[in-house]
C-alpha cells in the first residue's frame, strides 16, 4: 500500500489544491496523502489514532510549518526521533523564510527548505524540480519493515 506516495502536510485547502495542480502539471503521478494538521500527520505516519493499524510509508513528506495542533517543526522532530521514519526524506514547504525557521528546520534534519513563491509559475517550477530530484533522481533509503 501507499507505495511511492507523497505525504502532504498542509492545512490550507487552497495551497493543497495549488500543490496538487503543480504536481499534476509536472506529471507527478504518485499518490498524495494529505494531513490537515501536525497531529494527523503523525497519526498517519505512525498508524495511531484514526489511522490505527495502517501506518503510511510515503516516499516523501512535504511539510508546512505553521500547522494547527502540532506545528511542523515538532512533526519533523518526531519523525527524526522515530527509528522507522528516521531516514524519511522531508522537504519543508512553507510561506516563512524567517531565518530561525530555516535554521531550526535544517537543525532537526530537514532535507530541503523551500519557500512557496506567490507567483504560481515559479511555484510550479519549484515543484517540478522538487519532484524530479526527490522522486526520480534521488535513491531513497531502504524501506524499513512496516510496523
Amino acid at each position: 500500500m501507499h507505495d511511492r506516495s507523497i505525504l502532504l502536510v498542509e492545512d490550507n485547502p487552497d495551497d493543497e489544491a495549488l500543490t496538487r495542480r503543480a504536481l499534476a502539471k509536472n506529471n507527478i503521478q504518485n499518490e498524495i496523502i494529505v494531513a490537515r494538521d501536525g497531529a494527523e500527520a503523525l497519526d498517519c505516519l505512525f498508524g495511531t489514532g484514526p489511522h490505527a493499524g495502517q501506518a503510511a510509508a510515503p516516499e516523501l513528506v512535504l511539510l508546512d510549518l505553521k500547522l494547527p495542533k502540532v506545528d511542523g517543526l515538532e512533526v519533523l522532530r518526531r519523525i527524526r526521533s522515530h527509528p522507522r521514519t528516521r531516514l524519511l526524506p522531508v522537504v519543508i514547504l512553507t510561506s516563512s523564510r524567517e531565518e530561525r525557521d530555516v535554521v531550526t528546520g535544517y537543525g532537526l534534519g530537514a532535507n530541503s527548505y523551500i519557500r512557496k513563491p506567490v507567483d504560481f509559475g515559479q511555484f510550479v517550477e519549484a515543484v517540478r524540480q522538487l519532484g524530479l530530484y526527490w522522486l526520480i533522481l534521488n535513491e531513497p533509503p531502504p524501506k524499513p519493515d512496516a510496523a
Partner: protein
Amino acid sequence: MRLSLERRIQIGFGIAVAIILAVAAASLRSTAATVDSAIWVAHTLQARGELEATFADLIEAETGVRGYVITGDTTYLAPYQAARATLGTLVAGLRTLTADNPLQQRRLDSLETLVAARLERFRWTIETRRSGGAAAAGRAVVGDSGTEPMQLVRASVRGMEDEEERLLAQRSAALQARAREARLAAWTGALVAIALASLASVLVGREMAGRHGAEERLRLLVGSVRDYAIYMLDPTGRVASWNRGAQQIKGYVETEIVGQHFSRFYTPEDVAAGRPDATLRAAAATGRHEEENWRVRKDGSRFWADVVITAVRDDRGALVGFAKVTRDLTERRRTEQSLRASEERFRILAVTANDAILSADRQGNITYLNPGAERVFGYSAEEATGRPLTSLMPERFRDAHQAGLERYLATGEARVIGKTVELAGRRKDGTEFPLELSLASWTQGAEVAFTAIIRDITGRKQGEEQLRRYAAQLEAANQELEAFSYSVSHDLRAPLRSLDGFSQALLEDYGDRLDDTGRDFLQRVRAGSQRMARLIDDLLSLSSVTRSELQMDEVNLSVLAAAAVVDLQKSDPERHVTFAIAPDLVARADVGLMRIVLQNLLGNAWKFTGKRPGAHVEFGVTAHDGRRAYFVRDDGAGFDMAYADKLFGAFQRLHGTAEFPGSGIGLATVQRIIRRHGGQVWAEGAPDRGATFYFTL
C-alpha cells in the same frame, strides 16, 4: 651638696694655713727649747770657769802669801789682795749660777766657808810675819797644815765641777735633742707646706681644666648647632655672641653682627611699634618671653621665627644679658598652612557633598557626619556623634556589621572595605531606604578609624525598577512584533498565492472562454498579488533590520559594492553602466546589514539611471565634518531637493511606480541600518542631474 670652687679653695687654703701655723709653732717651740738648753749649757760652762777661777785665785793668793812670808816683800801680797777682792764676787756669782741647784748651793756654802777660812789663815800668817817676823811666820806656815785645807777646797771645787760636768753632759744631750726636734719640726713643716701646695696646685689645676673643658664643650655645642640661632644679648639688646645657626638663619657673620642692636632682626613695622624693647622688658620682667613672628634676614627676606628670649642673671640677681634661641619655622608654617588649606578643601568637600560622609572609631561609634549625612539619615550632627553606626542600619544587618567590624579589627580581613556595596539604611524616623556604601579604613596614630560615603539610592533604585519594567515591556512588544511579522510573512502570503495561483489556473484552464480584456484582468490580479508579496518581503526585511543584533567586524565595503554591482549587471546584461568603485574602503560594521545598504543604494542608482544611456555610478569616500562619508553617486534622474526629507520615509516615493518600480522601503531600510551603526545618511541631487547618497558610520 657640692661646694662651689671658691668655697673649696677657701676651705683648702684655711686647712693649709692652719697646718703650716701648727708646724711653725712646733718649730718655734723646739727652737726656743734649744736656745734654752744652750743657755743652760753656757751657764754650766760659766759656773765651771768661775769655780776654776776661784780655786786658781786661792792657789795664787796662797803662793803670794808664802812668798811674802819668805821675803817680807809685800808685793807678793798682790794676788792675796786681788783674791780677797774677787773671791766674794766669784762666790756670789756662783751662788747666782747654781741658784737652781740646791745641792750645788749646799756645796757652795761649804766651799764659801773653806775659802773664807783660807783667807783668814792667809791674813793671820801675814799678820804673824809682820808682827812676828819671818821666823814666826815660817813656823806659822810650817805649822799650818796648808796642804790639807787646800785639799778640801780642791775637793769641794771638784765636787761642784763634777756636778756641773754632769749637768753639762745632761744639758748638752737635752740641747741636742731639742735641736733635733727643731730640725724635724722645720723639715716636717716644709714638707707639709710643699705637699699642701702641690695638692692645692693639682686640685685647682684639675678644677680649672674641668671648667675649661666644660666651657669648651659648651662653646662647641652652641657653635655647631645649625638649626637654631643661639646667641647672647647684653642687657641693652646688643648682640654679644653668635653661633653658626644664627649665621645660617639670619645671614650675618659673627664679626659684623656682634655689638649691633638686635632690633635689626625685626620687621620695620615691629621696630616702629617698639616691639624689640618691649620684648626685652617682658623677658627681664618674667624671666622668659616666647613668640612666633616674622623676622628679617640680612638680605631683607623674611622668615617665620619661633623666638625664645631668656633673661640671664648672675648669682646676685643682676641682669647680665639675654639668651636668645631662634628657630626658622617658615617651612613648617608653609606646610601647616598648606595642610590647613587642604583640610579646608576637604572640609568644604565634605560639607557640600550631597552624599552622606561619616567617620567612626574602632568601636564603630560615629565621630563625624557631614550635612549630607544629616539630610540622608535625619539626625543632626550633635545627635549622631557618639552613637554606634548600627543605629543607622536596619536591625537585621546589625549583627553582621558588628561581626564584620570585629573580624576586621582582629584579622584585617575586609569584605566591605574598599568596595562599593548596596545595603539598606535606617533613618531617624525608622524608615528604611536603599543605599550605596563605600567604606575605607585608615590608622590615625595607633587607632583604626573608618570613613563611609553613603548615597541614598532610592531614586536610582526606582529608576532601575522603572527601567526593568520598560525593558520587560519592550521585550514583550518585540515578541509581539516578531509574532506579528511571522504571522504576516506566513499568513498574508497564503491568500496572495491563492489569488495568483487560481488566476493562473483560470487562465490555463478557462482562458479560451475569456476575451482579451478578461485575460488582462486576470493578469492584473496576478501582478497585484505579486507586488503585494514583494511589499511584504520588503517590510519583513525592514523589520528584521531593526530586530537583529549587530555583528561588528572589519568590513571591506568595496568588495560588498562590487558583489552588488555583479548582481545588478546579471539582472539586466543588456544595460551598459560604468561603475567606479574606490578600492579597499574598510569600516567597522555589520557585514550583512552593510550588504543590504549597498545593494539598496547601488540598486537605486542602477534603477534611476535606467533611462540614461552610458550612465555613470561611483562609490567612494569623502570627508564630512571630520568624518569619513561614503557616497554612491549617479548621473540619473535625480530628485528635487525640496523633497529630500521624504526620501528616507517608509513607503515614500518621489517617482511613480510606472516610471520607476519600487516599494519605497529601500531607503528607509538604509536609514535604519546606518542609524543603528550610529551614523548619518543624507542625499543631494537635482532633477535630471543625478543624485548622491552619503552615509557615515
